[in-house]
């Protein structure tokens, strides 16, 4: 993710970036970050400069600048503090901490200190829910925030001192024969020497030399591996949809990780990037691609740096590049920064964004497997999905299927955040009881409190009441229980939580993250948020609940992508499960 530095002219940066893509326009967002780093904001002149470099219109540049939350026409401050105010952080008290920040800095969120040094911003989910509450200070990460920590950071910034990453390793577990987390506790596993010593790239070597693409795809198909990005689509089947022609094809790895409650892919990037790279090599052989992009949300500064380093090492060791390990296969792997928009996690939104456009999802069909990135056949897979591939190839279908259920085989990284004693990311067999996840691995509800509700699979899925948590965490059982496995990130709430307030936080998120194309999503999302905000401010009116349900019903399944539905489900389920709390707000 080279964004250039003072020594490099923008032209050189642009040339370097353009070489990565089939179409120069794809360099747009990374270039915009380069000028934003250079100038402290994106000026009209810089837009012109970039438009000229990429031979596009300034209107197209300006669209991107105004669309992506991480880009700004206004000065952001030399150091920008971004505080997540989404569900997990808000459950753990981020709002009082934002007050502290505002007081200490003497500015409101959204402003910059008068000397132009420090900017403060509220942000939607930053994908670190298990370390909540958290914030980013420039590119540095601060988790498990407390008032003291926050004050300390501000004091250092004011004194002009460097601040350093405060990102302790997220709690994880031990599991026999791990598919994903085997290196999580190994110091320095992101270094290729350490990873190789633990067997990294062995299976890739073998597969490249001994197996045909069809054999790989068939093995992945037989393993029953399903997409871990939320939709659970069978991975082998997805690969087999790619036309078996010689033309250019792409593998795009989705590391946008922005669904509130989800923070698993970040652990793979930080703690075992070579697993992902090895998975990419095998998948690329199966699909027949020579170029793969990893789309990483830009707020993952530290994980992206680790991954970039790992990729470089893999090139240096001959696992990537031309004629990999003498097998005749070529493969380039590039990382590409996201612009801070949740919708770019949706696969066609991601493709649009990678191409240098606004992340406006495309109407399907055509599906990406037929016409995706640069309108070429493209597989979009989640980081965790691809990271499962080395295990499946090495240990075989039987071993993979020996855990989990018939339809949801294998293990998965489950996140637990919110009001638990030990929030973390745990690799467990599919079908693990939700109760075990919360009360076993995450060590139960925080001291002196009791469970009230769980959103089991990332913010979009229907909520469960305390008495409903005897459900197994696999695709089928969650569906039977009227909810979904989603991304497997459980958000746990204790009895202190007012459901309408939690819902307001979520609806603020969906209203903010609508890409704005579809009428129901653009208008409905903000309307729902306004109603909830009013209700929570003591101005609920008769009819509000019916109106909320009606708006939600009309967002569900009526739009181009599922974001509008994802915004509707929490509303429907929260009102269904906790009607009395909403009724109590009506006057």
């Amino acid at each position, binding site marked *: 993710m080279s964004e250039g530095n003072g020594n490099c002219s923008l032209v050189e940066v642009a040339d370097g970036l353009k070489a990565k893509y089939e179409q120069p326009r794809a360099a747009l967002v990374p270039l915009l970050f380069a000028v934003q780093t250079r100038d402290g904001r994106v000026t009209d002149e810089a837009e012109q400069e970039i438009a000229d470099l990429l031979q596009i219109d300034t209107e197209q540049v300006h669209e991107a600048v105004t669309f992506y939350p991480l880009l700004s026409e206004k000065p952001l401050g030399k150091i920008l503090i971004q505080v997540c105010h989404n569900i997990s952080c808000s459950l753990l008290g981020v709002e009082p901490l934002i007050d502290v920040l505002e007081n200490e800095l003497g500015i409101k969120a959204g402003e910059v200190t008068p000397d132009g040094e420090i900017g403060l911003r509220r942000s939607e989910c930053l994908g670190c829910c298990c370390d909540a509450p958290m914030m980013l200070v420039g590119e540095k990460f601060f988790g498990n925030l407390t008032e003291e920590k926050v004050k300390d950071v501000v004091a250092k910034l004011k004194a002009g001192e460097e601040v350093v990453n405060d990102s302790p390793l997220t709690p994880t577990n031990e599991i026999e024969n791990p598919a994903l987390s085997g290196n999580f506790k190994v110091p320095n596993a992101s270094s290729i020497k350490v990873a190789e010593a633990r067997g990294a790239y062995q299976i890739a070597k073998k597969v490249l030399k001994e197996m045909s693409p069809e054999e790989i795809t068939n093995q992945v198909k037989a393993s029953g591996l399903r997409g871990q990005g939320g939709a659970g689509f069978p991975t082998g089947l997805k690969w087999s949809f790619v036309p078996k022609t010689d033309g250019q094809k792409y593998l795009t790895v989705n590391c946008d990780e922005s669904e509130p409650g989800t923070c698993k892919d970040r652990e793979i990037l930080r703690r075992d990037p070579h697993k992902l790279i090895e998975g990419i090599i095998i998948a690329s052989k199966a699909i027949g691609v020579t170029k793969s992009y990893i789309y990483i949300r830009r707020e993952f500064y530290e994980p992206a740096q680790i991954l970039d380093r790992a990729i470089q090492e893999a090139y240096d060791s001959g696992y990537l590049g031309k004629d990999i390990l003498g097998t005749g296969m070529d493969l380039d792997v590039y990382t590409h920064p996201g612009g801070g928009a949740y919708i770019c996690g949706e696969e066609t939104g991601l493709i649009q964004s990678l191409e240098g456009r606004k992340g406006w999802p495309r*109407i399907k069909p055509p599906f990406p497997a037929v016409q995706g990135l640069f309108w070429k056949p493209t597989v979009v897979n989640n980081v965790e999905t691809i990271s499962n591939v080395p295990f499946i190839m090495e240990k075989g279908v039987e071993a993979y299927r020996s855990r989990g259920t018939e339809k949801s085989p294998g293990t998965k990284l489950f996140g637990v955040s919110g009001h638990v004693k030990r929030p973390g990311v745990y690799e467990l067999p599919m079908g693990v009881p939700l109760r075990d996840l919360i009360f076993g691995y995450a060590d139960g509800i925080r001291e002196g409190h009791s469970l009230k509700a769980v959103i089991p699979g990332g913010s979009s899925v229907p909520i469960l009441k305390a008495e409903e948590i005897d459900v197994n965490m696999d695709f089928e059982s969650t569906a039977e229980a009227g909810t979904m496995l989603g991304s497997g990130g459980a958000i746990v709430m204790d009895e202190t939580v007012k459901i309408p307030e939690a819902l307001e936080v979520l609806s603020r998120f969906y209203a903010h993250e609508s890409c*704005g194309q*579809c009428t129901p999503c*653009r208008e*409905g999302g903000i309307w729902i948020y306004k109603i909830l905000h009013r209700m929570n401010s003591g101005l609920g009116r008769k009819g509000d609940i019916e109106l909320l349900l009606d708006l939600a019903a009309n967002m569900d399944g009526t739009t181009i992508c599922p974001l509008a539905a994802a915004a509707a489900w929490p509303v429907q389920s929260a009102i269904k499960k906790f009607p009395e709390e909403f009724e109590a707000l009506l006057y």
Partner: protein
Amino acid sequence: MPKIKINGNEHEFPEGMNVLEACKNVGIYVPHFCYHPLLRTVGSCRMCKVEVSQNMRGSMQSRIDISCKVEVADGMEIRTDTPEVKKQQQMTLEFLLSNHPLDCPVCDDAGECELQNFYFEFGQHDSRMIEPKIKNRKAFDIGRSIVLDNERCVLCSRCSRFLEEVTHTHELGIFGMGSAESIMLKPGARLDNDYAGNVVDLCPVGALTDKDYRFKRRVWYLKSTPSICEHCARGCNVRVDWDLNPYHWHKKTFQMRKHRTEATDLQRIQRIKPRRNDAVNKEWICDTGRYGYKSTDSADRLTQPVINESGELKPVEAGAVIKAFVTGLNSAIKSNPGKVAVVVSPKLTNEEIYAAWSLFRKRLELPNLDHKLPVDPEWTGDDLLKSADPFPNRLGCEWIGFVPDGNGLGVEDLNLAISNGKIDTLLTILADPREFLEEKSLSKLKRKFFILRNLPEDLKEHVDAALPAAAWGEYRGTFTNFEGRIQRLEAAFDPEGEAQPVWHWMIELATGMKKSLKWRKTEDIMHSLSDHVINYKNLSYDSIGPEGVVVGDKA
């Protein structure tokens, strides 16, 4: 061709047609905002929902889908009238209206606003939005002729797609994200391209309005007449929207805007809109064509026959001017027919040119006829619509033969011919002679006759006698465009004052010169034209039809 059922009735449609167009073809209008047949389909407004049933693995499966995107497929069944379809349409409207201002009473688009129309047809709910509506820019000047009201915008992106895909100028974009997004000029830009006016036509609501039309008339007072633009050789298909009643003012604004002059109140043409003709102008026109109607009702219109009496132009009976023309022409011809030059503008219709040719060439055998007026050096064509030739009927002039004969003189020879006395009599029709004659040639001419629509103040001193010609909007006939397409113009209203179409004056003049031409209406002239000029063979107004027909070597 796929056979599909729409609301129970089976029809056949061409492969690739979308369901929205298919429905339209059988008279069922599916409401929509973002879809436009000439722009990329984005499927974002979600208004055009229908129920689509298709055979999937052996059984009929139904879903609600957007008709602008779904293509017809054999065996498909469409319903536009189910309760679920109606509900989704109503809901989409409710969403769109949730932040829409209550501007209809002061909005130019009222009466032709799709939001308003659909609301009456499909909506009719009471607003359930009690939160404050999102405030946004209003009456924002974004270009020479365009005003933007962001509160009224439904974000259909038709305008920005037009500027991206058709003009490639990108002045407008949808900036921001989600509910914060709005349509706006890109930094530093103004919407001033030659085709800017089209965005107003494309806008399904009153978010983009035309300064030229703002607050002029309620649309329900307008009458429409099909016509052809007379400003270049493309011959764009247009509609003249007109109203003769000066009291049909936007009352409220009349009070608000006292500075409006009486003259603008009395304009008959209120605006020009493109008509769709994919072979000529798709559904676009350039701004020259759009705003070029003003001369029809301008203050310098010549509305009466005039004769110069001792240095002053006096209104007279038409007969007196005809007599002056006849006497003058006769005496010139008697001395030498070569002393007369007749110059017509290629703005004349085929019928008018043929009438003039019939009189001057066929009957009077004058050698010096021409139509080749010089082209305004300011005028440039482009590769979208604007032709490099700013005249609508040059090809008609050539085909009919309104050109110098063997030894005859053309427009470019006239200065020399006048200075050495070869020519002393000039008749110009719809042309200002100063465009091709030097001042001294003009003064040297013995006789100068004019047939004019407009008589600018500074031309008056040169006029001996002039007949008033009907202006654009006041006559019917046909033009032959650059590719040989014959297209019809209809008269919207009667000519101002005593003005008459040129063909009428030709008949009067012929009668005066005892060379009678026996036509009573333009159809009669077309009939003769089709009999006598090869390229117009077998043409009639009926056979020309609404799209025109291409004839000649380009057919």
